[in-house]
């Protein structure tokens, strides 16, 4: 097990370096130097050349990439010229609220999706099952911001229960917890979208388990249906959710970006969006790497926890 984890971590490092190289190449191809951001778009060629030389942007791309990797190892993700701040301090400022948003939505969606999927599987082909499937399918076909707009229309404008956008003062987890109504709509939007895709898988996974012999055995022993479902089926059916959550991390990152943009939350997604607008490419690079790191780690953690939870899986 330990050997497997070490091997996977080794592969993960190579993948991350690969992602860094590809992103670095694309960004450098799109805009070779941040000089124009610092000096203004009307800067003279000579001034740009001097600035490039001072900051190392006149070296070959490979040399720049190697020194970038070296800096990352030392925890230095470069400088955001647009925000006039180092990238790591920006991430430390904006990261917690994004993590809170994703974490809360993920937790809530699992709490809803797992029982929903099981109930749908148990009462399969009933009117309720069809209705839930239809709603899930529709939500699944919806861009996340569009669902957010509908929820704003209903809960903020019509019912006046929650604010349509998040106040600028909510920047820390502490503020988010003491003002729960501020982040209510963004979290619900993300949760509903996650539930739409998770419960579909949970339903089919539960259907597979219900057809297994051990369920029939448990029923034949005379156990109540509640015990069969909660003690026998639930744990086995939930295994597939581990993999699914691990695989859905890129979508969580993307969802975060859109929801932060829609509700004006000062998190990493909005930071990335502004960086894209301003060609602030140290921020773009760092955020892409973070997304890739989470994706790779998500897969790794999913595989390891499957092995820990399911004795049939040997690594």
């Amino acid at each position, binding site marked *: 097990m330990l050997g497997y984890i070490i091997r996977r971590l080794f592969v993960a490092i190579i*993948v991350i370096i690969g*992602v860094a190289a590809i*992103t670095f190449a694309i*960004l450098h191809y799109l805009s070779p130097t941040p000089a124009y951001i610092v000096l203004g778009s009307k800067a003279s060629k000579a001034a740009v050349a001097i600035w490039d030389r001072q900051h190392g942007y006149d070296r070959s791309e490979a040399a720049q990439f190697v020194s970038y990797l070296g800096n990352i190892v030392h925890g230095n993700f470069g400088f955001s010229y647009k925000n006039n701040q180092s990238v790591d301090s920006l991430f430390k400022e904006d990261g917690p609220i994004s993590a809170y948003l994703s974490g809360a939505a993920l937790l809530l969606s699992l709490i809803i999706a797992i029982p929903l999927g099981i109930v749908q599987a148990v009462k399969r082909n009933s009117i309720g099952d069809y209705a839930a499937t239809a709603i899930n399918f529709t939500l699944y*076909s919806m861009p996340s911001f569009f669902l957010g707009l509908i929820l704003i229309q209903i809960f903020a404008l019509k019912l006046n229960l929650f604010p349509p956008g998040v106040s600028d003062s909510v920047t820390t987890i502490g503020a988010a917890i003491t003002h729960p109504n501020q982040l209510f709509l963004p979290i619900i939007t993300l949760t509903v979208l996650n539930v739409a895709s998770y419960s579909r898988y949970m339903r089919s996974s539960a259907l597979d388990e219900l057809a297994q012999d051990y369920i029939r055995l448990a029923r034949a022993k005379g156990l109540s249906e509640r015990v069969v479902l909660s003690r026998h089926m639930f744990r086995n059916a939930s295994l597939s959710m581990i993999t699914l959550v691990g695989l859905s991390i890129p*979508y969580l990152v993307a969802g975060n970006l859109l929801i932060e943009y*829609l509700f004006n939350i000062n998190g990493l997604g909005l930071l*990335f969006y502004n960086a894209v607008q301003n060609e602030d490419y140290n921020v773009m690079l760092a955020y892409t790497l973070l997304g890739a790191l989470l994706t790779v780690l998500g897969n790794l953690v999913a595989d390891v926890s499957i092995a820990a939870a399911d004795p049939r899986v040997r690594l």
Partner: protein
Amino acid sequence: MTDPRNIPPEQRIAELGPEAMTAPATLGGPRPAPEGGEVQSVQSGWRLTLREFASNRLAVFAVVLLVAIILFCFLGPLFYHSNQTVDNPLQQTLAPGATPLTGGASHLLGTDEYGLDEFGRLMVGGQSALEIGAFASLVAIVIGTLYGAVSGLIGGFVDGLMMRFVDVLLSIPYLLIVLVLATKYSGTIVSLSLVLGVFAWLVPARLVRGEVLTLRERDFVIAAQTMGSSRWRLIYRHLIPNAMSVTIVNVTFLIADSIIYLAVLGFLSFGLQFPNTSWGDMLGNALQYVLAGQWWLVYPVGGMLVAVVLCCNVIGDALRDAFDVRLRQR
């Protein structure tokens, strides 16, 4: 006993009785198989799939709805004439049915912030959205199918290397890389399609490779190899046609995803240049419209978009079931 394939069909029907006429041709019916029965079996496979698909009422409804939306977008402007090119400041954001201050006819779905008729805008925006969705998926599926087929056929070290490259690219969240590309390459239908398609081929490549890995051990591929088929001929004549079911199912999902991401890009204000527009661009200021109560600028276009994506997803699911021999009921 003569070979039944050599007996003319009329005679065979006469021998087998009238019930042979009603038996579906797909079940190896009375029609004599041509030389090289392989072609026949491929045809009947397709027909079986089609029949299976047609028995799914929801999927058929989705096809009808999708065709209706396509006709609405592309033929609609022939019947519903409206100004879609010159902005008209005097008619900005008129509610549906409201008469313009300057007089003149009211608009069925009101007007947008440029004063253009929103109902006509739905058609024009739909044309670009559907074109971009189709073209982006075409780019993705062509790259993905070729890449997967080549990787699976070569096998060994090269295959491992090619697939690790896919793994690396798949670790980059799609939206991030698309956004970065969109900053420089958006504005036209072709460039937006390329932006959306150029990183969408990864999943199809994986699926096609998996299919090719099983296909290349099959007898007909080994036979073709023994007869001296070149690697390229093997790929386009044998492997790709047989991996077609995977490809077709994937195209429908790719179209759905491309249209969703087009909407996302439009919402984040990366899109076509005015007066061109797509359903994505029309949602660019959607939050302001909602806050200002201008529902007609948000929900009709959003509804159309969701309907198209939903249709594609339903059709894709139904096709996957129809192609899956194990799920076939008959």
